[in-house]
């Protein structure tokens, strides 16, 4: 044996998982929503998505370079952030505003806190909220969607979102197919559910957070006297529950932590929708729960195998 052997601690086998593969799966799962956005709002959506993705990747590259750290754009997480942010914006937003959002997401929220895995809130959501409070009129200017009911139109270039429209304006079918005003990625429920199913099958996300989130939101709607199905299909609930609340870094890793987190998201979403000045509450509720994640995890350390709290019929 002429050459030296490699010596290291076990295990000597590694699985085929990789961060890049996971991010690629999320991108694949978001593709139907992106395509639907192009169909519903026209090719302008594609331009907006391209701007956001390109800006995010570029900013990630530059900020890592300035901080003299290894480049991480290869893990595709910046692409996911850019894509998610774009899907959370109205179609006719000024590209400069969108790029400012990317700056908030990548530089301020993600890289300044240490890069991937270290951000304490979801970058795309934080950016959306910063834009929402900085540019409220631009962020709430909803262009009419393809095939939206005439009653929803406010004027030639504006339509109402399902959450502010009068009751009866939109049917469930309109909401499922995205024939309504809103952010480019949130309007079409069917494609979001499709993406969610893909992520669950690929084991990228556990179904706990989306399911509990939606169930809690439905229950809360009933309690406060709203139509549960309408609430789930309208606004950003599906996009939030499937793609935002399940963000690894900003959601609990423990099973019961996920449940508590999702219950909180669902609860605050409906409370904000019903009792706050804003029509929508998804972003704020997820952001609030993001901040609580360390506490939730601390409270839900799982019982390890063999940890017995005195009882159990041992002598069976």
């Amino acid at each position, binding site marked *: 044996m002429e050459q030296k052997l490699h010596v290291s601690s076990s*295990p000597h086998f590694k699985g085929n998982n990789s961060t890049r593969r996971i991010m690629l799966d999320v991108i694949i799962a978001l593709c139907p929503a992106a395509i639907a956005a192009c169909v519903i709002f026209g090719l302008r959506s594609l331009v907006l998505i391209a701007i956001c993705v390109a800006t995010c990747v570029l900013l990630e590259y530059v900020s890592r370079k300035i901080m003299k750290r290894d480049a991480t754009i290869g893990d595709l997480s910046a692409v996911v952030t850019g894509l998610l942010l774009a899907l959370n914006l109205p179609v006719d937003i000024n590209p400069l505003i969108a790029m400012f959002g990317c700056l908030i997401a990548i530089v301020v929220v993600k890289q300044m806190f240490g890069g991937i895995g270290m951000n304490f809130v979801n970058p795309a959501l934080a950016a959306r909220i910063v834009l929402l409070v900085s540019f409220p009129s631009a962020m709430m200017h909803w262009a009419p969607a393809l095939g939206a009911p005439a009653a929803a139109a406010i004027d030639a270039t504006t339509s109402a979102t399902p959450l502010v429209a009068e009751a009866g304006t939109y049917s469930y079918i309109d909401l499922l197919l995205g024939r309504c005003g809103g952010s480019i990625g949130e309007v079409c429920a069917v494609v979001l559910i499709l993406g969610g199913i893909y992520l669950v099958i690929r084991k990228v996300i556990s179904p706990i957070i989306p399911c509990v989130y939606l169930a809690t939101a439905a229950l809360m709607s009933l309690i406060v006297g709203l139509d549960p199905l309408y609430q789930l299909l309208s606004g950003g609930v599906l996009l939030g529950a499937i793609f935002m609340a399940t963000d690894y870094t900003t959601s609990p*890793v423990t099973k019961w932590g996920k449940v508590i987190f999702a219950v909180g998201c669902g609860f605050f979403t409906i409370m904000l929708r019903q009792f706050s000045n804003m029509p929508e509450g998804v972003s704020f509720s997820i952001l609030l729960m993001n901040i609580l994640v360390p506490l939730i995890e601390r409270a839900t350390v799982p*019982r390890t195998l063999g940890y017995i709290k005195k009882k159990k019929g*041992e002598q069976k």
Partner: protein
Amino acid sequence: MAELSFPKRPYRTKGGVHAPHNKNTAHKESVVLPVPALVALPMTQHIGAPCKPMVKVGDTVDVGQQIAGSDAFVSAPIHASVSGKVKKIDKITMPDGSKVDAIFIESDGEQRLSPDIKPPQVDSLSDLITAVRDSGLVGLGGAGFPTAVKLNIPSDKHVDTLIINVAECEPYITSDHREILENSWDVISGIITVKEFLNIHRVIIGIENNKPDAIKALREIADSSVDPEDEIRVLPIKATYPQGAEKILIKACTGREVPVGGLPSDAGCLVMNVGSIAFIARYLKTGIPLISRRLTVDGGCIENPVNVIVPIGTPIKEVIDFVGGYKEQPYKLIMGGPMMGISLPNDELYVLKQNNAILALSEKEAKFNEPSACIRCGKCLDACPMRLQPLELANAANRGDIDGLKLYNAMNCMECGCCSFTCPAKRHLVQNIRVGKALLQKAKREAVAASKGGKK
């Protein structure tokens, strides 16, 4: 006491990973290695006190002659595996890097059996324990715990179930599988001996369902007239790593959980490796102590993978040359399986009692990736069979955070490596947790020392 029942299907266990099985040698008859010219028998081939040499340089020894022993309770004597002359007693480096005295015996090729060898007279449990101790048997599954100590169950523990471990969940390894196919009667007669002397009326053979031929062979004998009370049953369990880990196997076979920090006997179970139980049967018949064993030689760099029966102490290089040598320069040489085995610095080490495989892995198989940032995906939690939080443990270990290590139960980690296997960021989780466990033990020792110092 309630009637013991046999589970129809295994109890649910959490976690684990689907490592590639690579059981290339399962259908190949084991081959016997010719007597090597030189063997080296280290004084530590078991968990417990090291043995002291009982022979001097220049002595002539016979096969099966005891050449080293210890009075300590947790220990196992060592026997000459070849006949010949003691060449030297010198320090050798063990796979874990420690230096241990070893007796080198130059073989005369005669394989003369020691005249002292005769089947032991066993009429009671204490006879059995003495006999097993004299045989030098240690757990052949890899841990190397002296079997006599295991059989010596403290009187305050009630053990009602004997579990035979045939999970063999590590990739590549098939030595237990071949043991069953080639020596199935030894397995069953060993089981009957142990269960009768220990007065156990439930024996569950836990075997991964990727060995249908072995399941069939064992069932045929277990269902025959040798087991009239039907107290021995074969339970196929799912083929995921690490089903063969003692605590996981107990959970799968009985639904019981071994308490944190406890032993299998705390859950009323005795777990024995199939190779060890078959050896007991053979020893009672022939009186030949543990001087050889079957091990799997495999891996992407091995020309002709096969199970080999080798004398204990054979140089690893000789075993590999015997099966055709290396196909290509190996990247890693591993003693044991790819998930928990120890990687060796060179092939000039020697086969130990508890050594169940030698693997020469190529760079492609044993790929090493630089770790990237943790994305908190939680896959390590899903994979951990002990339901720990590997990411938190590894972080606590990196910070040197003793409280954090305690909070997340670091000592309950059995180092199976599922977390590192599954981590998409390729983080060295179990490796860091090992460091954390060492930190905890150090802190404990320091605390003990400090409290003693305070009293003075």
